[in-house]
Every structure is written in C-alpha cells, then in structure tokens.
C-alpha cells in the first residue's frame, strides 16, 4: 500500500473515530486564563461564578461609555446564549473578577487592565476563547506574536468607533483617509484591512502603487485574502488554498495543474520565484524587465541539475531568441510539449 493510501485511510479512521468518541462522550470544557503581573488569573469558561464577580451593571456605574460601546458587540451579547449559561460573561470575562476593584474604590491594580499588560499577556486573554478557530491556532508562534504585536493592536475588544465620514481618494488612499471612509469594519477591526496593515508595513504601500499590482488599495482585495495575520505554518504567513496549494491558485485557477511537464519552480518555489505579487513596474509583475533575463538567470549552464542551460542555437544576439515566451508559451506547465511550446 502506498504512503498516500495509508494516509488517506488514517484520515478516514481518524474522522470516524472522532465522530464515535464524540457521540459517546460529553462536551469537555477547558479552563482558560491570563497572566496579569506575572500572576495567573482565571477569567472565563468553566471558571466558577462566585462572589468575587460583581456583574457588568456594577461596572457600568463608573464605566458607562465602555459599557454602552461593548453592549452592541458580540462580546456584550454572549449572556443571551444558552451555550454560555453558567460561564462568566460581560466585562469580567476579560477583566477578571471586579469585587476587589469595586471595594477599593477603583484601584486599577485590583483589576486586569489591558493598558498595563504587555501585548502577549493581553493576547492570552483573547486566545482563551478564540484559540480554537483554525485561523487563530498558530498565533502564539506567528510573526506578529514574535514581534509583540498583540490582538488589541488591530482589534478593538469594546467595539471600534464607527468612523466619522471623511473624504478620501476613490482610487488610491493614504493612511489617514480610510479606504472605506465612514464605514464600519468587520471583526472589530480598528480600521479597514489594507489600511491597518500598511500603517506598519509602509513599504508595501509603495509597492501597491506600482503600475502593475494587485488591486488591494482599491479595495478589491484585502491583505488577508493572501496572508493570515494571526500566524501560520507558511512563509510570510501566507494562506493555503484549495487544500495544500498556494494562495495564488485560489484565483489563478489555470495555474494549479498538475501538468505532464511541470515547470519546477512554480510548484516548488511558488509563484514568487518569478513574480512580485505586491506590485512591480515590470510587465506581468515579473521580477525582471525582460523575460529572457528572468529565464536565463536560471537556465544558464551554471549548474545542470534540474535547470538545464539554453541550447547553443538560442543565439542571444538575435532578437528572436530574446523573447523566450514567444515560443515557450505554456511556461507555467504544459500537457503536450516538454519545452512548453503549447
């Protein structure tokens, strides 16, 4: 039996086994917690609802603005769910029990204040509920985590302000003129997807202003169409699509293959071996102006393994042989010609 068949069988058995166990066992809850000042504080999920908790209405007495704001969000509506019955919801689900804080007349050291937490500790609080979703599972090992960019840098847990209407360019936009000015954002984001990202990744904004580019700043695409800001197993936190293929294949479907004659770099190194996806002055977002330059840097005879040099009749003083893709049209892969002629 081949490796792939064994793997397929394992997946099926795993799936069926999980289903069976599911049927015969009850739901198991976990205890989640966060770190505040080096001390572990249990805040949510199966934590007992005891007399240390005062309820959100008590919080509202002093924090009326935050109370009203969070009320309109999912965070403020969890108490309506039967599945959350018996769990701590409301302000104290994130900020911890408030009794000591109340009894000390608002002593900020007696409550979990996110302003006082480092970004990793603050993120741990969010992850105690949000870690189970596949997209979030790798946050603790992602680039943003590594660089101390926490959840609250991009998301507003109390709900973002509905932005004030402000004029902005209808083609390209800058940092201050929100792309969808005057518009709300999903996922409690503090700003629209590309604007939020380019506010740190400023060099990418320049790339998206090149003549050939993916239309991200125009709003047709989002950064999160290709990248997972919450981390992932792929380089540059790119997403996979259609199973285990590169994110590009989701839209560029005719490049997915498989082909009889594969152009190796396409599948092994990925599209970025030849293209610059954020933007380029070169046609087709290629890395070089001339196609032959791109081809010859690999097919040059420096090594012969897997990337043969061009044959000697490709006289480079003849214009004809400088236009590689005139003949090698099916450069992404061919089913009928080993030199990608068709």
């Amino acid at each position, binding site marked *: 039996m081949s490796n792939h068949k064994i793997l397929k069988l394992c997946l099926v058995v795993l799936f069926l086994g999980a289903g069976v166990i599911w049927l015969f066992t009850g739901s198991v809850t976990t205890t989640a917690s966060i770190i505040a000042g080096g001390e572990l504080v249990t805040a949510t999920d199966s934590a007992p609802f005891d007399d240390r908790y005062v309820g959100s209405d008590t919080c509202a007495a002093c924090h009326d603005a935050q109370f009203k704001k969070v009320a309109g969000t999912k965070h403020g509506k969890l108490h309506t*769910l039967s599945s959350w019955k018996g769990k701590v919801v409301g302000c104290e689900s994130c900020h911890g029990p408030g009794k000591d804080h109340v009894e000390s007349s608002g002593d900020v050291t007696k409550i979990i204040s996110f302003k006082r937490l480092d970004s990793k500790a603050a993120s741990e609080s969010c992850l105690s509920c949000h870690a189970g979703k596949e997209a979030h599972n790798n946050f603790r090992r992602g680039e943003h985590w590594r660089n101390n960019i926490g959840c609250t840098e991009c998301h507003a847990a109390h709900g973002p302000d509905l932005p004030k209407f402000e004029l902005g360019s209808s083609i390209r936009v800058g940092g201050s003129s929100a792309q969808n000015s005057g518009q709300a954002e999903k996922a409690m984001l503090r700003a629209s997807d590309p604007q939020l990202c380019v506010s740190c990744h400023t060099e990418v904004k320049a790339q998206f202003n090149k003549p050939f580019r993916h239309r991200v700043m125009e709003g047709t695409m989002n950064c999160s169409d290709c990248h997972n800001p919450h981390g992932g197993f792929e380089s540059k936190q790119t997403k996979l699509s259609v199973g285990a293929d590169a994110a590009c294949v989701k839209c560029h479907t005719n490049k997915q293959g498989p082909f009889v004659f594969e152009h190796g770099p396409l599948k092994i190194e990925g599209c970025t071996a030849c293209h610059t996806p954020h933007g380029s002055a070169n046609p087709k977002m290629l890395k070089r102006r001339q196609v032959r330059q791109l081809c010859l840097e690999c097919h040059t005879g420096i090594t012969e393994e897997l990337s043969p040099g061009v044959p000697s009749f490709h006289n480079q003083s003849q214009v004809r042989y400088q236009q590689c893709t005139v003949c090698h049209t099916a450069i992404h892969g061919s089913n009928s010609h080993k030199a990608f002629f068709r």
Partner: protein
Amino acid sequence: MKITNGIMPTVSRALLMIAAVGVFSAAYGQTPSSSPGVQTNTGEPTINTSVELGVRGLEVNGDHEKFRSDLNYRAGFRLFDSSILIEEGRSQFRAFDSALIQASGWGSDPTGSFRMNMDRIGLYKFDSSVRRVRYFNNLKDHVPTWSQPVSTGSQHYANTLHHFGDFDLTIFPERDLRFRLGYGFNDTKGPGSNTLRFRGDEFQVDSEIDTRSDDFRAGVEGKLLGFNLGVLYGHRMFKDGTQFIVSSLNPGNNPAPTTASLNTASRIYQTRGATNFGNFFFQRTILDRLDIGGRLIYSEVTSEVSERDVLTGRLSATGNIVTQNDIVVPAFNKRPQTRGDLGMTVRATSKVRISNTFTFDQFNISGSNTYFEFAALISNTGTPQTPTTTSTSSWRQFGYKRYSNLLEADFQVNRAFAFNVGYRYTHRNVGVFVSDRNLISGAITDSGGEEHENSTNSFIAGAKVKPVSNWTIYADVERGQSDNVFTRLANNDNFNFRVRSRASAGSFTFNLSAITKDNDNPGTSVPVGSGSTAIPATEAIANTKTRIFSGDVEWSPSPSFSLNAGYTYTDLTSNVDVILPIGTPIFSPTRWQFGSSEFYMRDSFFFFDVFAQPHKRISLYAGYRFNDDQGQGDRVISRPQDLITSYPMRSHNPEVKLAIRLTRNIDWNLGYQYNSYSEDPFTSPFSTPAILFPAQNYTAHMPYTSLRIFFGPKAGDR
C-alpha cells in the same frame, strides 16, 4: 450576456442560501442567561448607510494600451465606496444581529467588489464576497513581434472579465460544535491572443479564453476531550475550454517569403480538473502552560486534458503545402499531496515562552500523455507527398519532500522590552524522472531521472523596545540559508534585517522603517564549449541586495483637518553570473560567453493626503502620489553577454475632491484625478535586428461627480 448567464446561477444560489439562513434564524429562539452579562440595547434596528453614485469622465492622451494595461478606467457611471450597516434590535424573530454590506467599483471601474458580512450571535455567521476584474494587457515591451523594428504591441494580449466569489457560512459559531459550509467560484472569459509554433516559425493567433472553477467546502469544528478539533472537506471542479483560431493567411513572425505560413488553424484545449482535499486540525491549551496545535492536509489534484490541433499551411524551404495536419494529445495527471504541521508553545515562566514548529510537505506529480500527429502534404506544384505520422508517449514523475523545524524562545523581560531567538533547520528532496517512448519505432528514452537534496540552517532574533509609552521599536534579523532558489540549487545565504519605529506625540504619529536583505547564491559553472572559446568550471554567484527605507507622518490636530504624508525609497540590485550563447553577427560560429545579468531599481515613492473641513458644509481632500524609479542610471551594456535592465519610470497622480453638504443626508462631490505616466524607451544595443520598445507614455484626466447619500443616526455627524 454570456457573462450574465455565467454568474446569475451563482448569485441566485447565494441569495437562496441567505434566505434560508434568514428563515432558519427567525424561527430560532434564544434562552437568556442569568450570568452577569452586559445588557444590550433594545429597540428598533439601527441603520447606517452611505452610498455614493456618480459619473466619471475620461480623456487619455498618449499610449491608450498602456493606460488600459495599468488602470483600465472607463468613462461612465460608477458606484463609489458604499456601505450599509444594519444592527438589529432584540426581536426574537430577527434574521441577524448585524449586517455589513460594502460595495465599490461597479460600473466603469476596472475592479468591483461586493462584500456582505452578517451574523446572528449564537446561530450563524455569514461572510461573502463577489468581485469582478476587467483585465486588460497589451504592452509593447512584453512578447513583441521580434521581426518588427519598432514594437507595436504584444503577441500575448488579453482583454478578459474575471468574476470570482466566496461564500462562507458558520452555523453556531459560538458553540462547542460548529458547522462550516462554503462555496466559491472563479470565471474568466474573453478574447486574447497567443503564439503558436508551426514548422519552425511562430504565429500570433486569436484566442477565446474560457476557464471556470467551482469550490465546495464543508466541515465541522468543536471541542472534544479538551481539544479544539476540526475537519474540513473540499472539492474543486475546474474546466478550461480555451480555443485558438486562425481563419485567414498568417505569414508568421519571420517575414522571409520562403518561411512557413499558416492558412488555417484551430487548437482546442479541453481540460477537466478536480481537487479533493481533507483538512484536520487540533489545538489545546494544557494546564495554561502548553499550547499545542497541528494540522494535517491531504489533497489530490487531477487533470484530464484533451488537446486537438487542426492546421493547414506551407512549409519553409521546400514550399510544400500542408493540406492536413492533425494533432491529438490526450493527457492525464495526478498530484497527491500531504502536509503536516505541529506547533507547540510552552510557557516556561510568566516571562519566558519556548516554541517549536515542525512542518512536513510531500507531493508526487505523475503525468503522462500520448502525442499523435498526422500531416498530409503536397508539393507546390500539386504532387502528393508521403504523409508523415508521429506517435509518442511521455511520462513524468516529479517528487518533492520537505521538512522543517523551527525552535524559538521569547523573553518578555518587562513591559518595555522583549526579545526572541530561534533556529530553523530545513531539509528537502527534489526528484524528476523522465521516460519517453516512440510508439512507432518502440524506442524508449529513459533519462533515469535526477534527484537533489539539500539542508539549510537559519538563526533568527528579534526585539521589541518601548522606550516610552507612546514609542515602540521593533527589530528582527535572520541570518542563514534559505532553500527557495530551486534553479541554482546551492543554498541561498541570506541576511535580512528589519527595524520599525512607531511613535505618537500629541496629534502626530510617526512611522519609520528600514529593511535590508542580502542574498548570495554561490555556485560553480559546468565547463562549456571547446578549444580557445571554452569556458572552464568557474565560480559563479547570484547576488541580490535590497534596501528599503520608509517613513510617514500623520497629523490630526482637529476633527476638521488631517494630513498624512510619507516617503519610501527602494534600492534593489541584482547581479547574476550567466553563461550565454552568442552567435552571428557578433561571433561565428556561436560561442559561449561568461556574462552578467543585472537588474536595478532605485525607486522613490512619495505621497500625501490632506483633508480639511473649512466650513461645516464644505469638505476638501487633496492627495498626491509620485513614483520615480531611476533604474540603472547611466549603466550601459558594453558587451553582448551582459544583460542590464531596469524600468526607469515616473508617475504623478494628483487628486482633488470637494464635497458640499446639500442636506443632512446628501453630499455633492466634485473631484478630479490626473494620471501622468512616462518611461524610458528600451533597446538592445547588441540585438539583430535592432528592436526598439518605444516609451509607453500617457496622461489621463478623470473628472468625476457624485452624490453620497447617508442614512442613519450618524448621517448628521459629518
């Protein structure tokens, strides 16, 4: 109409799904909890809407094809950025809690998008997007007709419409057992052109591009034995029915009268592809100290191809006429792929975390085809010639296996300082196996294949410093090897460094960043040539250096004024040793030459955006984008074996916009955009015949006017 036909069933299906969700949710009741939650507001739905409809004018001077390839805006009606946010009250029969609908660019824009996100807490979450891209590409410096002294266009142009959409529904998103359903589609249609080889020459042929894919996804997620688990099954159907047609005499690229010509040609690709994949993931946080998560993906992609060519024309040299040339190529390919990932993070102390991430990827592509060709010929005097028949089969296997392990530790020293260090090891194996057979003679060409493996090591480190509460500095560095240089196969020695600073002071926000990337790919050439022109084994490198410096400032002193300006400088130099064949008219006979391939980018990008509201009824916006790439500067080619290129170009994009508040709910906008693009012409000094790619300069004036209509409590806030 064709396009409408293609997309309507999809939209109908989507609407049906939305309606079903709405009905389902309306019938579903919730049980309020006695937990100390935040009490939500009761009452009527809240609607915040801003819709902008208008018309754009357009005048393009200069190179229209380049303008369309870059921007492709058209004159006419268009929908500007518009959104509707509806937040429902607490009615038991509400279909959703909130619905956010955003749309932009429909009408005369080249790209349009429609997004809808709606949810009802405890019941469902629905995210959807439908997008349209009007793609055009016809450039004078990309695949030109090589026999023309001055390029007039590309032989590979395209003018297509691309529709794509995604619909994702999660049922019971906040519960321990969740269901996920998804559908996506991709549709590309339109005319284009391509080149077709026939009897030693190339011919530009018209094509009708027609591809479509449909994706289906279904999965379940939940908690079991303390683990967050999920499985997802997906299926993609893909079809390509692209055709190439020549219906009249086509002399081909070679202008010589004795060379081949095509009278008629048709090529039909019928490709049917399918992808089936399963994705299993798990995650658990154990004892608040160990976070463990993993993923296993198995996918199997197949494609079944049937290519049929029917051609007639004339042969070169002999002048014989091809009265019938039929080619039939059936092919079948399969790619099973397995990806496994496992990540663990241990919180050793409250300040120290240690993580390990292991990834594994393996696939095998096996493909085979049978090539059958029949050609009937007559001489130019009408005498029948002996027909030719070719029949071959090809088999290829492409194997890839890679695993990588990253071990890292991060230390949160205090709230103001954190750093991390890590080490990554990667190993991979690539193999290609080739077998060709002549089905007439029975001769087999079996290369036996090639196999290559390599390993790389990298060290990473990073730090975050917060000198004061409103200033943060991030820095990270990576030193080691990367294996993403398939072609040269030696490991790519790299050194990457990145530092960012974000600071705010009063109404100012400052961002600064510097990025450097150094990549060296050492190698040794194989000996080529013979005699006095032989090139022995020589050390050869591929070297790329990138320097990016970027900064911007935001100043928002009051709600009625804001300024944002920034500058980014990108300096990229790539220098690659190459060995090229150079022949007549420079060398005869052709000889191999050791040269270099250089590419330069010296790009400055500057922008500013200003918003001002001098009067409560008047708002002003002004923006400016400037892009200037100096490219290779004064470097010129002095030897035929050197390739030195860049793309020196400049673009200016100013825009002004005036908004006048007519009523509480309506603004009248008047705007003007200008696009100026210029580039340097390009020629190859050692090319025969000399060919010139002329500068594709253009300017575009785009005035527009629109009405933005507001609804909802926020309408009067502007």
